C-alpha cells in the first residue's frame, strides 16, 4: 500500500485534539517551534505530552515524595528504574508499572506486554531480572466478563514470564465491582546488577552511533500511550485492540541475554528500551538526559510492514526493541553480540551536537524538534490540578461498625471470610506462573508474607511484596496510603528482611475531576509521610489516571511495591505453623476496632464504610526491628501479619499455609468488648508468631526488650482451629474453603 500522507504537511488543531492534546498545548508547541508543527512533529509532541509519558498532572505531587537517601544509588526518574545499593558490589533495580487499559481491551496480550515492558526497564540497566510480581484488581468474579479477564490476564502473565525465564513470586489479587470495566494490571520486576555494569540511559559522545536493536517495527501499539492509556475507557474499546502491542517473550529472552552480554563488555555508552511511545520516547529522553541531539534515518529502521509513515514508525510500540548508543570503536562488537543472539542491530543514526532531534526519511527532514521539551523532567507541561474532598467521605467515616449486631456464630463468619475470593488462596492463579526458575526462590508464593529471592554470590536475599487495600484508601486516602506502606513493610519484615525502598503504581480515575484528584493528592501525601517515617524512599514508579469506564471510577488504588533486604538468606521465615507444641504469640495490640473498610464489613454487611484504623509509625518501626532481630537469631518458627479478615483469618492461614501438612491451634485469648473487632478487626501493627517451646524464654526476653506489646495467645497442635468459645472448626473444612473457592469460581 502506497502511503498518501505527506509527513511534512502542517498539523491542525483538530489532529492535536484527536491525540489527547488541548488547544493551549497545541499553541505551546507552535511557540516552541516558532511555527506550526508538521503532522510527524505533532504526533511526537502529542505522545510525549500525553499523560502516560509526561506525568503532567502528577509530577508536581510526586516531587513531594522522599526520593533520595538510604541506599539509593539513583534518584527516582533519573534512569529507567530506581537503583538500591545492597552491598558486596551489587545493586537492585526495581520498578512497577501499570498496563490497565491494554489489558481491559485485550487481556492476554495486554498483560503479557505489561510484563515484557517492566522486564525491559530492568535489564536495560544491565540488571538481570530475578523476580516478577503482579498486583491485579478485577471486578466481581461472579461476572463472566471478569472471569474472562482473569483467565486472559493470568495466561498472559504466565506466557510472558515463564518463557522469558523470570520467576513470578508474589503479588496480590483483589476483587471489587468498582474494577469491572477497568481492571488493574500492575507488573513489577526486580533485578540485580554488579555496580560496575550499570548502564545509563543518558546519550552522550557527539558522533557516536545510535543503534536500533531487537525485533522489527510494525504498526502495533500506535497511540497506545496516548489514546489508550491517557483517556478513560468507553463502550467501544474492543475497536482499540490494534493499539495493544503483541508480545514475543522468546525475542525478549534473546534481547536480555544480548543486553547483559553487552553490559559486561562495556561497549555501550547508553541504552533505553522502546516502551510506551517507542522510538520517539527513547530517542528524545536519551538525548534530553544527555544534553545532546540526535539524528535518525527512518529508512534504516528494520520494518516488518511496508510503507510505514514516519509518524507510524516513531509511535509504534512494537515490543522487544531497544535504542543504544555505542562507544566509539565498539560498533563491530555490538553487532557480533546481537548476531550471536539472532537479533537485529542496525545503526540508524548519530549523536549530534546541539539540542535537536532530527528525523529523516527518504532523504527528507520530516521532524526537527528540541528533545528537552519532550522529556519528563524537561519542558513538558506541568499542571497543578484542583482537588476537593468528596462529599460522601464524612458520612462514610462517621459510620460506626460497632453499632452493628455482634456475629452470632463467629466460626461460620470465619468460613465465609475464607471463601471470599479476595482472602481465599490464589494458588489457582500463581501455579500458572513459574515461581522457581533460576533456583533463587527461597520462599515461594503462598508460603510467606513476602517472597524471598537470594542474591547469588552474596549470601543475602531480597524480600518483595506488593500491597494496597483500596477500601481503606477510598475511606481515608491519606491513612489508606500509609497503611499500604506499613503493611508492605511489615510483610517484608515477617519474612525476616529489613524494608529498604519502595516503588509505586498509582491507579486513579480522571485527574480533571476534583474528587478524584483529592484521593490522589492525599494518597501521595500519606505515602510520603510513611516512607519518610520508615526510611524507605521512593525509587520510582508509575501513575495511571483515567481508570474509568462510562463514568464509573475505580477505587483509588496506590499500589506499593516494597523491597526488603535480608543479610542471611538461610534464615528466612515463613507464615505457617510448623509443628505441634509451639507457642503462639501476638506481637502488637489493637487499640482500635479496625473494622472500618474491613473484609468483615464488606463480606458480612455489604458495606465499605467506617473509620480506618490509625497508623503508629513508632510502633511499626519497633515491630520491624523486632521481627528482623527474631529472624536473625532464629527464635521464631513462623510470622504472619494480621490483615484482611483480622486475627481469626490470620490464625486460620497459619494453620494451613502448607496444605499438605496442616497444623491446628488452640487459642486462649478472650475479650470483654466487641467480638467482631476482636476476631475480625484489621487494626494494623500486629503479627502472629510461633515459637518452639524450648526457645520461649529467649524469645520472651528479646521481645520484652523491644517495646512491642507481646501476648501469648495459644499453642499449636491437633487438627482443629479452636479459639475459646468463639471458633471451633476442623482444618479439612478450613482448607476446603480457602483453597477451593477460586478454582470453583474459575471452573464455572
Amino acid at each position, binding site marked *: 500500500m502506497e502511503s498518501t500522507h505527506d509527513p511534512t504537511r502542517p498539523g491542525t488543531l483538530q489532529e492535536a485534539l484527536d491525540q489527547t492534546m488541548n488547544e493551549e498545548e497545541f499553541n505551546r508547541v507552535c511557540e516552541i517551534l516558532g511555527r506550526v508543527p508538521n503532522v510527524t512533529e505533532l504526533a511526537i509532541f502529542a505522545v510525549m505530552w500525553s499523560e502516560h509519558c509526561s506525568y503532567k498532572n502528577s509530577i508536581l505531587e510526586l516531587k513531594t515524595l522522599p526520593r533520595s537517601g538510604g541506599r539509593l544509588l539513583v534518584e527516582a526518574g533519573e534512569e529507567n528504574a530506581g537503583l538500591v545499593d545492597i552491598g558486596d558490589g551489587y545493586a537492585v533495580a526495581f520498578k512497577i508499572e501499570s498496563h490497565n487499559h491494554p489489558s481491559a481491551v485485550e487481556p492476554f496480550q495486554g498483560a503479557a506486554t505489561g510484563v515484557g515492558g517492566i522486564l525491559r526497564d530492568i535489564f536495560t540497566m544491565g540488571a538481570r531480572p530475578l523476580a516478577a510480581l503482579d498486583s491485579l484488581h478485577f471486578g466481581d468474579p461472579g461476572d463472566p466478563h471478569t472471569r474472562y479477564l482473569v483467565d486472559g490476564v493470568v495466561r498472559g502473565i504466565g506466557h510472558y514470564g515463564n*518463557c522469558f525465564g523470570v520467576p513470578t513470586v508474589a503479588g496480590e489479587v483483589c476483587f471489587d465491582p468498582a474494577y469491572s470495566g477497568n481492571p488493574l494490571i500492575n507488573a513489577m520486576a526486580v533485578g540485580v546488577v554488579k555496580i560496575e555494569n550499570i548502564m545509563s540511559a543518558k546519550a552522550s559522545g557527539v558522533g557516536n552511533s545510535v543503534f536500533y536493536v531487537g525485533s522489527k517495527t510494525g504498526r502495533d501499539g500506535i497511540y497506545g500511550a496516548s489514546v489508550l492509556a491517557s483517556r478513560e475507557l468507553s463502550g467501544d474499546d474492543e475497536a482499540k485492540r490494534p493499539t495493544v502491542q503483541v508480545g514475543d517473550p*522468546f525475542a525478549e*529472552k534473546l534481547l536480555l541475554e544480548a543486553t547483559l552480554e553487552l553490559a559486561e563488555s562495556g561497549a555501550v555508552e547508553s541504552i533505553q528500551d522502546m516502551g510506551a511511545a517507542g522510538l520517539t520516547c527513547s530517542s528524545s529522553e536519551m538525548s534530553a538526559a544527555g544534553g545532546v541531539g540526535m539524528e535518525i534515518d527512518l529508512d534504516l529502521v528494520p520494518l516488518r510492514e511496508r510503507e510505514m509513515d514516519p509518524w507510524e514508525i516513531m509511535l509504534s510500540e512494537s515490543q522487544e526493541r531497544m535504542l543504544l548508543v555505542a562507544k566509539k570503536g565498539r560498533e563491530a562488537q555490538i553487532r557480533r553480540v546481537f548476531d550471536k543472539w539472532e537479533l537485529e542491530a542496525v545503526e540508524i543514526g548519530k549523536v549530534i551536537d546541539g539540542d535537536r532531534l532530527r528525523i529523516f526519511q527518504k532523504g527528507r527532514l520530516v521532524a526537527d524538534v528540541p528533545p528537552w521539551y519532550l522529556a519528563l523532567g524537561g519542558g513538558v507541561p506541568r499542571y497543578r490540578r484542583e482537588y476537593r474532598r468528596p462529599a460522601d467521605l464524612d458520612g462514610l467515616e462517621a459510620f460506626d461498625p460497632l453499632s452493628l449486631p455482634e456475629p452470632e456464630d463467629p466460626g461460620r463468619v470465619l468460613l465465609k471470610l475464607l471463601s471470599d475470593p479476595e482472602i481465599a488462596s490464589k494458588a489457582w492463579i500463581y501455579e500458572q506462573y513459574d515461581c*522457581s*526458575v533460576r533456583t533463587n526462590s527461597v520462599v515461594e508464593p503462598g508460603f510467606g508474607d513476602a517472597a524471598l529471592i537470594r542474591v547469588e554470590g552474596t*549470601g543475602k536475599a531480597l524480600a518483595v511484596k506488593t500491597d494496597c487495600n483500596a477500601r481503606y484508601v477510598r475511606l481515608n486516602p491519606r491513612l489508606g496510603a500509609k497503611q499500604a506502606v506499613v503493611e508492605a513493610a511489615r510483610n517484608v519484615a515477617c519474612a525476616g528482611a529489613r524494608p529498604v525502598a519502595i516503588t509505586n503504581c498509582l491507579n486513579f480515575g480522571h485527574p480533571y475531576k476534583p474528587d478524584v484528584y483529592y484521593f490522589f493528592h492525599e494518597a501521595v501525601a500519606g505515602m510520603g509521610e510513611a516512607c519518610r517515617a520508615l526510611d524507605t524512599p521512593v525509587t520510582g514508579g508509575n501513575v495511571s489516571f483515567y481508570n474509568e469506564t462510562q463514568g464509573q471510577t475505580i477505587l483509588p488504588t496506590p499500589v506499593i511495591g516494597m523491597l526488603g533486604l535480608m543479610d542471611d538468606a*538461610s534464615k528466612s521465615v515463613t507464615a505457617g505453623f510448623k509443628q505441634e507444641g509451639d507457642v503462639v504469640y501476638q506481637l502488637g495490640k489493637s487499640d482500635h476496632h479496625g473494622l472500618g473498610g474491613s473484609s468483615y464489613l464488606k463480606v458480612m454487611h455489604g458495606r465499605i464504610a467506617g473509620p480506618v484504623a490509625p497508623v503508629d509509625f513508632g510502633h511499626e518501626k519497633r515491630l520491624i526491628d523486632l521481627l528482623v532481630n527474631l529472624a536473625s537469631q532464629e527464635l521464631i518458627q513462623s510470622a504472619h501479619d494480621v490483615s484482611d479478615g483480622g486475627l481469626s483469618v490470620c490464625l486460620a492461614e497459619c494453620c494451613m499455609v502448607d496444605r*499438605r501438612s496442616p497444623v491446628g491451634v488452640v487459642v486462649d485469648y478472650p475479650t470483654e468488648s466487641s467480638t467482631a473487632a476482636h476476631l475480625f478487626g484489621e487494626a494494623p501493627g500486629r503479627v502472629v508468631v510461633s515459637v518452639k517451646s524450648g526457645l520461649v524464654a529467649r524469645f520472651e526476653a528479646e521481645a520484652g526488650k523491644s517495646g512491642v506489646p507481646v501476648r501469648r495467645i495459644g499453642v499449636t497442635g491437633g487438627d482443629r482451629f479452636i479459639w475459646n468459645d468463639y471458633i471451633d472448626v476442623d482444618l479439612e473444612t478450613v482448607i476446603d474453603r480457602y483453597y477451593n473457592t477460586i478454582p470453583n469460581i474459575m471452573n464455572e
Partner: protein
Amino acid sequence: MTRVTDRVTRWGVVVFPGSNCDKDALDAVGRILGQQARAIWHRTQQLDDLDVVLLPGGFSHGDYLRAGAIARFAPVMDKVIDFARNGGLVIGICNGFQVLTETGLLPGALMRNAGLRFICREVSLRVERNDTFFTRRYRDRQVINIPIAHNEGSFYLPPDQLQELEANRQVVFRYCDADGNATPEANPNGSLNNIAGIINREGNVLGMMPHPERRTDPILGVPDGAGVFRSIINSITGNRLESVTPGRFGR
C-alpha cells in the same frame, strides 16, 4: 561422613536460544555438587571430553511450532545423538525431555497438560526402580518431592508402545500421592500411566518433566532432586560409597 569422589565428572549443559534452566543445572551440578559443568552453545559440534550431556528446561526457540521441534535441528543435536549412541549419559529435563522425544532418542510425545494450563507446583514422584544410572542413589519405591513447571507435560505413547515401555521397565518416575500411590488425583497433567520420567531401552538416556535441579541446593527446600545427579556421578566414577561435598551457599 564425607568422602570425595576419585575424579570430578564433566558435564555439558546445552544452551539453545530460549533455554532458561541452563544456569540452574550448571549451578546444581557445578556449584552444589562440585562437578565440572560448562555451557554448550547449540551451534557447538564438540562434545568429546564430556561424561554427561544435560538438555535443560526452558522454551528453546520459543517453543514455536511445537516444544523441542526446532531445537532438534540444532547443530549440537547430531553430536548429542552420536554421544548417546556411543553409550554416553544424556539427561533431558522438561524442555530437554521434549527435545529428546523430538529427536527420537526417547519414545513418546509430551502434549498439552490435561487442564490446558501451565502448572508450577511441587509434586510427589515415586522412584520406579533404583537400578538405573540415574536413580541408584534413591531407595526403591522412594517418594520424592520436586517441582514441575510446564505447559506441555502430558506424556503420550500409542497403547502397544506404552505396553512395551512398561514391560521393558523404562518408566523411572511416576506421579504419586504422599503415600506413593499413582492415583489419577496425583497426576497433574494427564500423563498416561502417571509417567513423569523414562529411560531409553539401553538405559543411558533419561527424560523427565519435573525439575531435580530446583531441589538440589538445600536452601531451596528438601534436596530430593540431588539424587538424580548424584546417581549419575556414582555411575561414572563407580564409587558407590561416595558422598559428594555439597558446595556451601554463598561465601
